[in-house]
């Protein structure tokens, strides 16, 4: 996975994956795939998109996105745009073509949460 060749391959894969299929519709449903629990990969809980799950979601702030978000995500939305203080200095960033993997969020629907397991 390392080295120039590996990077090029990853970038090619990325370009392929990023092209994707442009869709006219927005987010329409969110299904929680639970953690693997204590067993690492032993127990994956998939919560169906039942009305009860949908009911626990909050409409997207962005009306152009027919999205859903979890209550916890929406409740923390006061964090949005907190972060622009960055000392670029001599630091470098990996090159993934013209794509920056992570940008500050402009708010709106939260689609997922990254946390330790």
């Amino acid at each position, binding site marked *: 996975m390392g080295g120039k060749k590996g990077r090029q391959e990853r970038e090619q894969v990325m370009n392929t994956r990023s092209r994707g299929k442009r869709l006219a519709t927005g*987010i329409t449903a969110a299904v929680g795939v639970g953690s693997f629990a204590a067993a690492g990969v032993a127990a994956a809980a998939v919560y169906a998109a039942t009305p009860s799950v949908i009911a626990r979601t909050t409409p997207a702030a962005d009306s152009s996105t027919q999205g859903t978000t979890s209550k916890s995500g929406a409740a923390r939305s006061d964090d949005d745009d907190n972060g622009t203080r960055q000392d670029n200095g001599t630091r470098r960033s990996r090159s993934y073509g013209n794509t920056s993997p992570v940008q500050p969020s402009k708010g709106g629907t939260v689609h997922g949460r990254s946390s330790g397991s």
Partner: protein
Amino acid sequence: MTVTEPGIVAAAEEIVRDVVAAVDRACSRFRDDSELVRLQPLMPSGVNVSPMFQHLLERALDAAHLTGGDADPTLGAQLAALGHGPLEDDHAEMPGHPGMRSIPVPPAPSIPAAPAPRAPGWSRLHLDAGTLTLPADLRLDLGASAKAVAADLAAAEVHRQLGCGVLVSLGGDLASAGAGPQQDGGPGPWRILVQDLPSDPAQHVSLAPGFALATSSTQKRRWTHQGAQVHHILDPRFGLPADPVWRSVTVAAPSCLEANAFSTAAIVRGFAALEWFRTEGIPARLVDSRGRVAATGGWPAEDYLAAGIESPEDSMEADQNSGCFGEASVSEGARHG
């Protein structure tokens, strides 16, 4: 899991379930009928493995290569000795910690001996044309990398079969494939909340479609062993939990496997991870034991001023003098409960 197209969430869910089940059957340490558990006794003399097991093992070795061995798939015995493994005989499961138990061991000497360095296990593993040979003193644990690979596989498979954009989250590791959600008339990024425990600093970020995020934590999976708090990320050099310099480390990468490998290795490397990530330009967010946040590789920094929090720079002077944080941007994380 989140998809971008109406009417296919059930089909996507089924695909994700199938992928997760296949990975689980191949490499779970927590079920007797998994391929890993069944074949482990045969590995010293060489054993043929299934294509899925081979794929998971090859990716685990990729992670080891990528991190110089800091993400080592041969720590199964050490994890089990610390109490992270399937229940055996009369070893009771620990309340509130499914799958964990503390194993009785002889009393420790009054003056603990320094841990002896361990030979890198992953470099002693041989996988050739589907035949795996593993020395008898090693046990596989593919847990971290397998979860990340499962997220990558599931996202790719949903996109391949259904053509939609998808974001798959398995235990907090996120992989995406296809276009992102609609935003301003076109596909936009996935919006992600990065936060480990509810009391930890939170940040909302946008993740470019096709990329992945992984978070490794020293706080979430903890238990008491021999009267001491331990966690599940081991330093391969000693087979013991890494010093919890970081509460959590989150990394963005083109694949969840790569993100997971780097986030795991950062926990193992401690303060040295900051310089490593800065040099390599790896987009990462590191939260230290005091809740301070460092960003590397273009990761958007939090603005403690906007959050009305006193500058952490004075309090970090000692760390900076010791080279802990170098030139990485640092801010005090706003805590949210």
